[in-house]
């Protein structure tokens, strides 16, 4: 796989349906619990979009654009609200750690004023990806200039980076040493395909810190 195969999304991809006993869901090996979790994130995403649409957005005379601090605060709150709505399904330690990571990532003292704050659509794709992979070792978090969350796993001889895009899309960049041969890949895929796409690269190295839960 090379970047020649990297396709930038031109239209919003419809959300995948994990419901019922769909063959699609079964073919990707998702458990009923995973499907339920992902559908829950979809429901939250959908309800938040409806709430946004219902919120009056008219700018009053004399009011100004949001300050960077306000934008960061809003995006942090949005991400935490998302998380809290699916929190009952998350490990308590993971939730605490995720909040801490988000606080650190969106810290005004570390903020580059030209960046866009975290996009909620990207965060929703991140949560769905995590519910699908259920990594024992969770990713470090970064942010693209454009406001997409970046998840990263680092091993001495291999790297995995995921940029979570809107519409359930994930951009992957990885490199690893496989039997003395350096292999690299970059591609876009959808959340449902993540585990299948990563399978040839022994993702357990990143996700399970050495054990073979996902092999």
């Amino acid at each position: 796989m090379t970047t020649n195969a990297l396709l930038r999304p031109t239209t919003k991809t419809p959300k995948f349906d994990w419901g019922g006993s769909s063959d699609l869901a079964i073919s990707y090996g998702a458990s009923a619990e995973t499907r339920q979790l992902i559908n829950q994130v979809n429901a939250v995403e959908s309800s938040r979009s409806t709430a946004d649409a219902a919120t009056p957005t008219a700018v009053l005379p004399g009011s100004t654009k949001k300050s960077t601090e306000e934008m960061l605060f809003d995006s942090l709150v949005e991400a935490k609200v998302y998380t809290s709505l699916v929190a009952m399904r998350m490990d308590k330690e993971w939730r605490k750690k995720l909040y801490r990571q988000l606080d650190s990532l969106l810290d005004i003292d570390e903020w580059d004023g030209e960046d866009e704050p975290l996009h909620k659509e990207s965060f929703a794709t991140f949560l769905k990806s995590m519910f699908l992979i259920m990594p024992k070792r969770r990713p470090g978090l970064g942010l693209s200039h454009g406001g997409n969350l970046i998840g990263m796993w680092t091993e001495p001889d291999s790297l995995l980076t995921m940029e979570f895009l809107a519409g359930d899309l994930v951009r992957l960049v990885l490199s690893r040493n496989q039997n003395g041969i350096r292999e690299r890949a970059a591609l876009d895929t959808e959340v449902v395909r993540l585990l299948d796409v990563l399978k040839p690269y022994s993702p357990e190295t990143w996700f399970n810190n050495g054990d073979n839960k996902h092999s």
Partner: protein
Amino acid sequence: MAITNIPDEDHVLRLVSWQRVRKDEDDNVTGILGEAFRRKPDEDALSVNWQERVTGALIDQLRAAARLIRDTQESKKIGAKSRLARLQVKATKEIAKKRGAKIRIVHEPVDGNEPHAAIRQLPDDDLELLEMIASEVVVDHHQCGPLLQP
């Protein structure tokens, strides 16, 4: 002003904000993300500083670069957890060439930052190249907070 190519054996320093630092789930720093070498939407070249343009020991060159970059930011600040990533000019050009990109690394002084330089023609859409620069070309990286202390 004539454009000067920076000598191959010299180095350039790229400011990497905390959001583009590679880290683990506990925020322990493990490197630099390829995203750190992607241009911002309004940039036509990647902004860097020429390390050897400032004389002195490495620590003095890093301190000078951190201050000059901070003072020429619109906000007049850079995050304490941001880092200066150091790249050798020759290694950067060679890895880009392997990927079919002919980049130029040139001295482009700006007001208040004479050692300012630019990496030109680095393709933004070659994510593998950006990651290779981050993981294979970056010689080392230094936290800005301590560099900015008086």
